[in-house]
């Protein structure tokens, strides 16, 4: 089984979550109000009152085929809007 960690802007959540559903992931978990720094610069909580939003951390535990489907759907979004994804191995508890 695989674990996918996505860190994207909160603004893109409403595009990303339907894609996760479409890839038939068994579920996902979202943490909002996340901040950080990445290749596209700093994201701080202080701009959250604006519509600009902070980051969201999305975790998906899924099998390899779903991961491939996710990659297909999400890559263009990460490339266009920024955001990163990392994969590690995991097992059901």
């Amino acid at each position, binding site marked *: 089984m695989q674990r996918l960690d996505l860190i994207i*802007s909160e*603004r893109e959540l409403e*595009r990303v979550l339907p894609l996760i559903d479409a890839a038939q992931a068994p579920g996902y978990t979202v943490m909002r*109000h996340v901040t950080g720094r990445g290749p596209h*610069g*700093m994201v*701080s*909580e*202080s*701009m*959250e*009152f*604006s*519509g*600009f*939003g*902070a980051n969201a951390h999305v975790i998906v535990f899924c099998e390899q085929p779903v991961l491939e489907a996710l990659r297909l759907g999400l890559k*263009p*979004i990460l*490339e*266009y*809007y*920024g955001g990163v994804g990392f994969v590690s191995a995991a097992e059901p508890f």
Partner: protein
Amino acid sequence: METSLVLQNLLSPPVLFFALGVISVLVRSDLEIPAPLPKLFSLYLLLAIGFRGGVELQHSGLGFQVLSTVLAAMLMSVLVPLYSFLVLRRQLDVFNAAAIAATYGSISAVTFITAESFLDVTRTSHDGFMVAALALMESPAIIVGLLLVKLAGAQQRPEAQGGPSIRWRSLLHEAFLNSSVLLLIGSLLIGLMVAAFSPQGLEKMEPFTGKLFYGALSFFLLDMGIVAAQRLSDLRRAGAFLIGFAVLMPLFNAAVGLGLSLLLGLPQGDALLFMVLCASASYIAVPAAMRMTVPEANPSLYISTALGVTFPFNIIVGIPLYMAMLQLVIPAG
């Protein structure tokens, strides 16, 4: 005259709390107003300003002056991005120039509210329909910003390049139905209806939308001071050209606004608000829309100029300065 106006503004609670926020960042204090508390105040201020504007609009009615003023405001939100773009292109690429231009075509609700409070404190009357103008200046600026990218940046941005292509529907949606426009216009209509049909309801809203307002604005400006000061370090990267733009363009826009106010025959208070609308730049709705539709632009450029330079400039220097200019040409109401 002018010194007293500057002092009156500088020594008002909202501006002083803004300064306290700036100072706390400069001395590296750990003062912070954690999310989502600033959102609470910003939602509250939009709701209250919209509601109050609606109530006053109901009292004044929709005459010729209302319509012509609102139209002139919308015109400015189209013109300002166009000439700003020409200026900005001298140093910036199409994407950044368009995003910053759109930012300056739109408005800052908090600057507007601070100007209103300034008028209240100096006991200068002003009309509720100016809130309608405020609400209607965000959308055109957003649309013009993206048109500029489409036209001027066509070759730099092959649609087929991989990114999900921006559809017009989602742009118009972002322009007209973003949360601040919706809340502002919704509250304005609610204020209008309540004022017309439910006098008791109106009276019972007063402590919330009226009495509390000034203190909540002051508290929110404490946070704005913190946020604006945190942006100062970005400015070094932005460079002298952008900093100059962020001070001079508002002055120019305010001057154009003054001219239009004279043409429209606006009384002193409304003219100040009109100038402030022209001079202020958006750091909420427009950045959010630009991030979505022009991701090629660097957000730290358009947010930092609007929030780190133009906003403090207008709050501290601009409002009394514009008022002093007005007092030379328009007699007190």
